[in-house]
């Protein structure tokens, strides 16, 4: 942010009729044409000259990109243009995918969330993106449309690094699909920032659990860590431990220790590596305890 009051650089705003013409255009100008949803990340990147755009290609009017459909058999489809405030206020989300709504509420302020979209937050691929952990634990799959047609990618296979995804030039995300969540599941999303209500997460932990007869502990767990490695990580070893061993304070502590050993946080202006490591253990344990207590009550 060298010049906080500089204008946006010159670019041309493009709005084409169909997904086909839009993706063809994006493919013709790799590194020059960028897709636009809410704009709350990309316009800042333009202004700070982190990206030198030639074209900004709007997706918001495209047919089918605003879908929000829930079916008790198939699950939920959230189109690319659905905003975070739409997600937070949705009864479907509150009832079936509650931690997605809780995480969405951590993004920016109310005004920002009237523009910012779930799919945009996912595609921005920030290591501290609030909605990524819950979307992964709800087994989200991206519906990708490109010049070679449509395909589906599980969100857990989508990320290559900070700000990097497997999207190819000419590919855009049309929607994200979530299957019906596991029966009787509960979840907890804990994000720790420098203030209570609104800050980028220094560390965030998402945990989800549901009764599972086949598991020796009687439960299956899912655990994801944000802001502590180049991409959001799912802590499979800890998940296995909690399905195999009886759930006690000691097994929850062991799971938090595994999380601590798997994270790879960095030092930066907002917190030190050491502090973030402490937070990973503390928040993972706290989230697991809250989750387990919610099943006991």
């Amino acid at each position, binding site marked *: 942010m060298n010049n906080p009051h500089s204008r946006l650089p010159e*670019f041309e705003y493009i709005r084409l009729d169909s997904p086909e013409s839009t993706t063809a255009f994006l493919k013709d100008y790799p590194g020059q044409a960028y897709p636009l949803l809410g704009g709350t990340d990309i316009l800042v990147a333009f202004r700070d000259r982190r990206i030198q755009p030639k074209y900004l290609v709007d997706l918001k009017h495209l047919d089918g990109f605003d879908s929000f459909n829930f079916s008790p058999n198939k699950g939920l489809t959230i189109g690319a243009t659905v905003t975070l405030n739409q997600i937070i206020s949705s009864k479907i989300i509150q009832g079936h995918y509650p931690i997605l709504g809780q995480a969405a509420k951590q993004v920016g302020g109310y005004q*920002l969330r009237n523009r910012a979209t779930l799919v945009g937050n996912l595609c921005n691929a920030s290591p501290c993106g609030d909605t990524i952990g819950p979307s992964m634990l709800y087994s989200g799959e991206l519906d990708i449309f490109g010049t070679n047609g449509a395909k589906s990618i599980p969100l857990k296979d989508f990320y290559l690094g900070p700000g990097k995804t497997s999207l190819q030039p000419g590919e855009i995300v049309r929607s994200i699909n979530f299957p019906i969540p596991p029966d009787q599941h509960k979840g907890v999303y804990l994000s720790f920032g420098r203030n209570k209500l609104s800050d980028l997460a220094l560390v965030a932990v998402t945990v989800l659990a549901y009764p599972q007869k086949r598991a020796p502990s009687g439960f299956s767990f899912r655990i994801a860590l944000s802001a502590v490695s180049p991409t959001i990580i799912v802590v499979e070893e800890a998940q296995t431990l909690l399905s195999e061993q009886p759930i006690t304070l000691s097994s929850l502590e062991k799971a938090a220790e595994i999380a601590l050993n798997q994270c790879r946080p960095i030092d930066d202006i907002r917190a030190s590596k050491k502090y973030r490591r402490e937070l990973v253990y503390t928040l993972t344990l706290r989230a697991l305890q809250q989750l387990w207590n919610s099943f006991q009550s």
Partner: protein
Amino acid sequence: MKKKHTITLTVNGYKEELEIPSNLTLLHMIRENFALTGTKNGCEAGECGACTVLVNGKPVNSCMVLAVECDGAEIMTIEGLTESGGLDQLQQSFIEHNAIQCGFCTPGILITAFAFLQSNPHPSETEIREALVGNLCRCTGYERIIQAVLDTTLE
């Protein structure tokens, strides 16, 4: 020079047609093309809320919206808060509570609170604090602002 776009939009009830470049934000259009300087330019990154206006009834950071995206939209700025140009009861309450010091953040806070109270006329104090998370104030410490909004809901 890049291509210009012709857009039509309504600002505080007045319909206007204008020609604008792609990289003009809604914030700069409001301040420079319409000379409505109540909308403030703070962080230009969607964090401080000083530039908040209503687009089709919803509060947004106007620094994070392109003017060209507002073709056909209805915009309301702080200058359009009351039709008469007088004070809204929210503004009156801010004055009575001394909820203003330098005043730079005030228009954005009023717009956000105005829109919030329309969707939730009787909020709790916590709900008001959550609604105003996207509006930073560096002078007041927020207490008087929260009280001013809260008092409006009791009337």
